[in-house]
């Protein structure tokens, strides 16, 4: 469809915050005209009475290839016993006898009877002949069967292969051994998995109104071959993909001719793994305050090298100490290069102090944040409260303070950890459990539209609904600015339009 007329909808153009009832004329991939009443019988016309049109959503933090791969994985988050895990594996194999590898995600011993993970021998009973890899949510631990253990060829001195009293590996790999095993796991996954799941994942994403994503790929938790895969296949997707390679090796960035670096370059870790660097100990482990994975000199060197190479850089910092050290590093380097063009980023920024927010604003940094954390981690005795304690957990993701400092916040799902669902993200930011951290629906919409585009240097073509811009649009069943805030997450995406073409429609 080259010509399309969208009639009678409410438009939130993301320019002035005022929804307007207007018609939109799309000619090929561009918004040709926006006016109060357009009539042209030569155009295919959609009557969108009662609907709301927003710019196509921009998800600024997606691990796309792992999301695609995980489509074949067994979600173990609801498993309550080892028998249940074994039964899930057995079912998976029975339904998919062609599987060459079994992947499981979100495995945690805390949900299991006796709080013990399965052993490799237990996994062998249902999968003696193909590798099994079961990952914990935060990738800290991986549990494998004997077949996988044999295939891994773990290095001699790697930390830490858990062994039983007889010195025999149990199948549980932690820390470095877990990271190493993840790499090998990705190497064992045939590309046919990606091929098979690509369409499923793509449909799930466009169903949520998403037309652009930043795919954060590679790095120590994932695999660099995912970057190659996306470079080769990104044109096969119905949405735009901008690749952010989580490497520290600038030579690789140059070789791939990318204009940005980072994403999940972990300065610190995560709350779930208790390795996000925090100033006060974790509430559920009084001796732990997380860790920094880089020395100050190393992180400064990395930022400086990126800036000297004219790259946009983006680094992961979660805890208040992680954030502070990253701000220190940016500040030091920015002083050396006062004329640099900015738009450098911090990913996550979950537990900043007030002074950190102020400094981030002064430094002109863009923050990529994940409001859905407030939806999924916030339940009573949920991860935030467990790890940080009640009082500190209220300080996470303080969107209001950040917006008040005029900082640009781009919204990201952090898929495959969380689902790709911008409306859920908007809902979570608007309904933040800490009322003082809530932002308006319009501000939350900015995160997933114009701010995402700006963070990716695409604000001239995307992020707002304007004549001459790309016809990337999401058509919603209700207006998030006027509906009951509690119901934003229930708004349906009726159509997703990418480059003027309807790539999804719900009815």
């Amino acid at each position: 469809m080259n010509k399309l007329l969208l009639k009678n909808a409410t438009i939130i153009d993301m320019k002035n915050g005022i929804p307007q009832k207007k018609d939109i004329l799309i000619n090929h991939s561009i918004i040709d005209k926006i006016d109060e009443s357009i009539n042209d019988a030569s155009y295919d016309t959609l009557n969108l009475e009662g609907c709301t049109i927003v710019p196509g959503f921009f998800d600024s933090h997606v691990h796309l290839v792992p999301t695609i791969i995980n489509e074949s994985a067994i979600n173990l988050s609801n498993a309550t016993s080892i028998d249940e895990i074994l039964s899930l594996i057995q079912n998976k194999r029975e339904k998919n006898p062609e599987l060459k590898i079994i992947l499981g995600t979100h495995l945690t011993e805390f949900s299991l009877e006796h709080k013990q993970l399965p052993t490799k021998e237990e996994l062998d009973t249902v999968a003696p002949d193909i590798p099994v890899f079961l990952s914990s949510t935060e990738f800290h631990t991986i549990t494998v069967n004997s077949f996988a253990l044999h295939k891994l060829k773990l290095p001699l001195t790697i930390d830490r292969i858990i062994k039983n009293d007889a010195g025999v590996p149990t199948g549980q790999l932690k820390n470095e051994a877990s990271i190493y095993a993840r790499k090998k796991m990705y190497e064992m996954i045939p590309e046919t998995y990606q091929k098979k799941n690509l369409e499923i994942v793509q449909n799930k994403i466009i169903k949520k109104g998403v037309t652009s994503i930043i795919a954060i790929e590679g790095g120590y938790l994932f695999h660099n071959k995912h970057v190659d895969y996306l470079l080769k296949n990104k044109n096969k997707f119905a949405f735009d993909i901008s690749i952010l390679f989580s490497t520290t090796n600038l030579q690789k960035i140059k070789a791939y001719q990318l204009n940005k670096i980072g994403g999940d370059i972990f300065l610190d870790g995560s709350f779930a793994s208790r390795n996000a660097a925090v100033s006060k100990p974790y509430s559920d482990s009084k001796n732990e305050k997380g860790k920094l994975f880089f020395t100050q000199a190393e992180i400064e060197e990395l930022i400086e090298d990126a800036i000297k190479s004219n790259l946009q850089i983006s680094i992961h910092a979660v805890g208040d100490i992680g954030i502070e050290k990253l701000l220190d590093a940016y500040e030091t380097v920015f002083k050396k290069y006062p004329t640099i063009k900015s738009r450098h980023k911090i990913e996550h920024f979950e537990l900043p102090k007030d002074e950190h927010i102020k400094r981030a604003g002064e430094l002109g940094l863009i923050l990529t944040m994940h409001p859905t954390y407030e939806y999924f981690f916030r339940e009573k005795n949920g991860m935030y409260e467990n790890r940080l304690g009640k009082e500190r957990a209220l300080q996470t993701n303080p969107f209001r303070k950040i917006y008040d400092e005029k900082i640009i916040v781009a919204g990201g799902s952090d898929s495959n950890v969380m689902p790709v669902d911008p409306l859920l993200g908007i809902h979570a930011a608007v309904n933040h459990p800490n009322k003082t951290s809530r932002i308006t629906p319009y501000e939350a919409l900015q995160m997933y539209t114009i701010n995402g585009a700006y963070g990716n240097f695409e604000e001239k073509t995307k992020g707002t609904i304007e004549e001459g811009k790309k016809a990337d649009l999401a058509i919603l069943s209700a207006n998030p600015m006027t509906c009951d805030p509690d119901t934003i997450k229930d708004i349906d995406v009726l159509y997703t339009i990418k480059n003027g073409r309807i790539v999804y429609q719900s009815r």
Partner: protein
Amino acid sequence: MDALSISLGDNMHLKVNLIGRMDFFIDNTLLTHNLSEKSKGLLTYLIVNKEIHYRKKLANIFWTDFKTESANRNLRHSLWNIRKEVKKINDSIDIFQNVSKTTIQINPKITLTSDLSTFYDQIQKDLLTHQEYSEFVKVYHGEFIENFYINDSPEFNNWIYYEREHYRKDYFNYLFSQGKKFYSTSQLKLAQIIFNTLIPLDPYNEKIYYYLMKTYEAAKNKSAAIKIYKEYKNTLREELNISPSIKIKSIYEKMLSNKQLERKATTSTLKLSQHKNYQMIIHATNSEEIIEHFKTHYLTYAKNNTVVELTKIPGRRLHYEGIFELTTELKYLLEDRVNTQILKNILNQRTGKINEYSLFLDFKNFIHNNISSPITVIIYNLSYIDEKTIDLLSFLYRQKSLEYLNFIICHNTQWSTNRIQFLLDAFKNENNIKIYNY
């Protein structure tokens, strides 16, 4: 490479390859393809563990989840099958020995050769040459029964895992010790080859990188050492998101700093060789490596240019010894052009009472009268020079005699004396003298 004989028997020769791909030969005829996976595993287990085994235990290792009777029956069948296949090739002797009804072992009377034995024989000895190294790595060309795994024999699989790790460790530890030996005996090329071989085997093991860096450093290839550190740092960061230890980092930083100094020194050296504006150039540093670098550079320079070299031979000179050494060297250099009377006046004072002022004046006159175009004097180590000779340098400068003799001096500041320091302080602002500090 021929494997070692294990037994004295001569009726049957069982040759096994257990490193890399598993293979069995009876009297040089391949047996492997005629055996089931379980039989191959069983045969391997009995060959590696040559002691007597209870059949019941073997049955349990290989048919873990089977009922006892069924497991025993399977074991019997497997043993029968191996025997049958072996007998097709050689039926002169039973490959197994039934010690009793309930036990079994590999027949100790057969001749058994194994690449594992060859491997263990080798690691009892030191490697001496590159050829020996190449042959040794050919022996360990893969892992113990590489990729062999029996789906329903978990205990056997655990055993394989353990054995593999064990042989890998032995291979690693042996090669690592050999690498260190070659490093300590300055057989640096071989040490480099060995340490580089070990990296893929244990890619995050800092000890390998540490020794590799030291080896390159000893081979005066700091660039390679620095490159190795960077590769290690990059590997750790990209694959495990960790930093190298402080220990290896500090070695790198020291090398880097010396490298930068060397580069600076080299630049200065090059400037020096072209620069005729200075009558005396002093390179001062506390780095042994830089001193060594200068020495190497100027020794080469001296081979291709007409120069006088002092303190080439180490040792602190006695009072005035440096002056006489310099005079003698000049005498040889100038040969028949020398005014013999002044020369005699100087050298005669070696055995008589020295009038210092008269000696200095004679030396000045000697060079003024005999040298037509400037001669360069290289002092490789200023601290070997006696104080009186240092006084002479000062005297010559005041007498404008450095137009005839130019000095290039290397000074290790760790060995500085008050007299040397005084010289450096006094001359540091003089236009005709350049002091480089590294």
